């Protein structure tokens, strides 16, 4: 039902920054602290939207053009990626390719905005971001190949809707490997530990946070919101693969889905608390491990 798809997208828009709050609260509990309020991300975005802009003299019009493009790309992605079992609003054969390349265009303009400032920090972040996404893409595609092979569908919503108990019972190892691989890719794409520390922009963790160092005011608010929505959408893909339920009641489905997303956010928080960011020269190895896990999944499926 298309109206359910709309409701899912609306929930995604409203609840996305809550994920950041959940992750931070989990990290705080691990650290024995009380932590930020759960709704802190909302307060941050609202505060940033009210502020003024500060631009660097080195930048051209490409710098302010970055945030609108990133926001529009994430908006279109929320229409393409299903945030629940009711499917997505837009779907067509091969939409998985449009999804990956929409992430690509938002990355392109984020890197260009970073290089536009002429700062060495941002150049560093841009270079590392390009490298990580390059290595994470094969893992994404291998995982999608595995799921497409199983469900005989090439539209993302088609793929995710057709995963049910039978698929799981028949192909447990390969789907498990796909989920682990996609989890690693999600951590890389959203700049979480072990790839990047979202709290700081210092040398050791200079990837995503440092690329947005010169953005200010509403630009930064939009970027913060877009990254939370991106986290929601990538988590949605993993949860949709993991949960093979398809109850006829929309509310039950959505409730289970939201519970799954919350559990995934708490898991990310746990991962962030027990690990440190791994050394940068080891990051390619971790991403290639993710690719090999999904290759293994493909081999199991093709057996």
């Amino acid at each position: 039902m298309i109206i359910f798809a709309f409701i899912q997208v609306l929930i995604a828009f409203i609840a996305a920054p809550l994920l950041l709050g959940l992750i931070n609260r989990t990290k705080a509990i691990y650290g024995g602290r009380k932590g930020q309020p759960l709704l802190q991300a909302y307060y941050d975005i609202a505060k940033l939207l009210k502020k003024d802009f500060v631009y660097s003299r080195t930048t051209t019009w490409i710098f302010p053009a970055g945030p609108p493009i990133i926001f529009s790309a994430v908006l279109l992605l929320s229409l393409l990626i299903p945030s629940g079992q009711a499917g997505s609003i837009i779907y067509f054969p091969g939409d998985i390719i449009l999804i990956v390349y929409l992430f690509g265009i938002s990355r392109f303009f984020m890197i260009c905005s970073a290089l536009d400032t002429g700062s060495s920090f941002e150049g560093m972040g841009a270079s590392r971001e390009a490298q990580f996404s390059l290595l994470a893409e094969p893992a994404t595609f291998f995982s999608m190949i595995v799921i497409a092979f199983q469900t005989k569908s090439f539209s993302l919503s088609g793929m995710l809707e057709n995963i049910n108990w039978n698929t799981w019972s028949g192909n447990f190892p390969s789907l498990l490997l796909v989920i682990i691989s996609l989890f690693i890719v999600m951590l890389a794409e959203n700049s979480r530990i072990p790839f990047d520390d979202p709290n700081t922009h210092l040398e050791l963790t200079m990837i995503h946070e440092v690329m947005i160092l010169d953005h200010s005011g509403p630009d930064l608010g939009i970027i913060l919101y877009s990254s939370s929505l991106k986290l929601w959408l990538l988590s949605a893909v993993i949860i949709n693969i993991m949960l093979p339920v398809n109850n006829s009641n929309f509310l039950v489905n959505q409730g289970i889905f939201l519970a799954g997303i919350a559990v995934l956010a708490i898991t990310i928080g746990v991962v962030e608390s027990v690990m440190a960011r791994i050394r940068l020269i080891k990051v390619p190895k971790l991403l290639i491990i993710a690719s090999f896990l999904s290759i293994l999944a493909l081999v199991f499926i093709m057996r």
Partner: protein
Amino acid sequence: MTLFIISLLLLTVGTVNTLILPKSSFAVKVAFLSIISGCLIALIPAADVLLTSETLNFVLPFNSLYGTFSLAIDALSAYFLLGILIVSLFGTIYGYEYMKNQPDSESTWFFLGLLVASMMGVVTARNGLLFLIFWEIMSLSSFLLVGFENKKQEVRTASLIYLVAAHIGAAFLILFFALLWVKTGSLNFIDIKNLSASTSYIDLLFCLAVIGFGAKAGFIVLHVWLPEAHPAAPSHISAIMSGVMVKIGIYGILRVLMLLGVVHTWWGWMLIIIGAASGIFGVLFTLVQRDLKKLLAYSTVENIGIITMGIGMGILGISYNIQPLIIMGFGGSLLHIINHSLFKSLLFLAAGSVLHGTGTKDIEQLGGLFKKMPWTGTGFLVGSVAISGLPPLNGFISEYLIYLGAFHALTGEGRILTVLSVIIIISLAIIGGMVLLSFTRAFGITFLGRLRNDKIEHIHESGYLMRFSMMAMAAGCFMTSILSPYILQGLFPVIKLIAHPIIIDTKLFLSLKQLISNLVIIFICFSLVIAFTSLIFYKLRNTRNSRQTETWGCGYPQITPRMQYTALSFSKPVTDLFTILLPVKRKHDKVSGLFPESSSVTTSTPDVFYSSFLRPFFALIEKVLFRFKWIQHGNLQLYVLYITATLIGLLIWKVS
């Protein structure tokens, strides 16, 4: 067809006056106008053939030993003609201003006209000997154009490498046509179509064709002339060479497929492996280049790889009789041909503009050019977004078609097709990721940030004609994206021609066209959302107080432009993973003594195929042939004796 012949005459005869009357700017103007009008006139028969899908013929009533002088425009020729004419048109407009102040540049107009005319001749020739004649004229005229600045040593070396490579390819083509003549008794394409040779010879023929045409197209290992010749040529010539001349190689392979009539499965696999290797190696080499044009030349190798993968997929579709593979494989690669012509020539024209405006094409010395050269910068940005295959521009649609074909193979029957699909999808994914890195590097380091070498002075934007050509190509990228359903419709007769005698499922094709139309609608909405959001932010910026300040430097007081990220460091994390393929040669002036004064380190990354395979291979050949140097003693009388002895020997052989 008469319009076509008129156009050919305009291109050659109209420009010969620059050769006859040197140093005459009037002659240059006449030549310029003849080329422009020639290109425009020939568009009419090309478009006519594509719209009505009938074939135009032209046969000169003279029969030689080897066949007739016959030209014809069918759907395949017309499609390639469109690419040739559009890119040559805008390249010429650009070249008029670009070459204006260069000394002794008048004769290049004749060679340019000859180049365009010979390319048109190659795609319309219907006789093997005529084809080879036009091919040779194309190689020679482009050789003379590449070697225009022959006062410089590297340009001379580059043009000689190009000449040798072009003739090695031509040698294989001569072998190909010779073998065809032996097997069928004729060089006319119409007669060859009814080929009934034995199987083994068809395989040999196809291999000869792949090597011969692949040398022109720039397949891996045979590509070594591309990164030498394309940077050495004047920028509009690079644009034409990279934009259309390498596609003539692809045309040759498609024409050979049609001539041979049958396809073998392993041909498809071979083309896919060649394509994947060209794509990945091509883009890998772009990551270590600091010469902007060399970077673009390697990127051409990569895109030819993508096109070849699509053709390989189409061939597999024909041999397994799977309709989606045929339509999407050939459709995607043909669409990528025109897309690549547009955005690669845009990128080369912009690179030429950078060279023209700053005097250097070394990206490590540039930076911050966007403020002084906004038009060039925008052109390069559009080209970079298009070549990375990002929505909403045209590069995405052709790559999407090839991906979709591969996904169809995935869900089909048979494990072998799954392997095909995995190879294509993963190769395209790796290539896509690297192209993004490569072109954010090329665009970002050159145009954004601040100028790294402040000794470069008088940076100026290009003039009107150069700007016009760049903006026209950029507009072409947008238009090709929006009009892709119609272009795909125009490709239908071409695909039908190539896949003959397999009948293409029209319903499947129309559903694919509908899919692309929906995708284009999504793109248009996406662009509107971007425009709307940007407008809101623009209004917001004007209502709030926006301050300008220095870039945040974490408290460092003296930020210099040299502290910015360099091009080498931008791609180093990735190139460090591939040190086998990208060996770094390091030259180090040793520091000596207790109080050393100065030292230097130079690093460079040579092309591993050239330095590790081809150069030693040719050196070995030279060593062997050196033993026979005594034959070339310079004594003219003995040379005449050699010729006489050969003639007598041939006579005896022929008589007996």
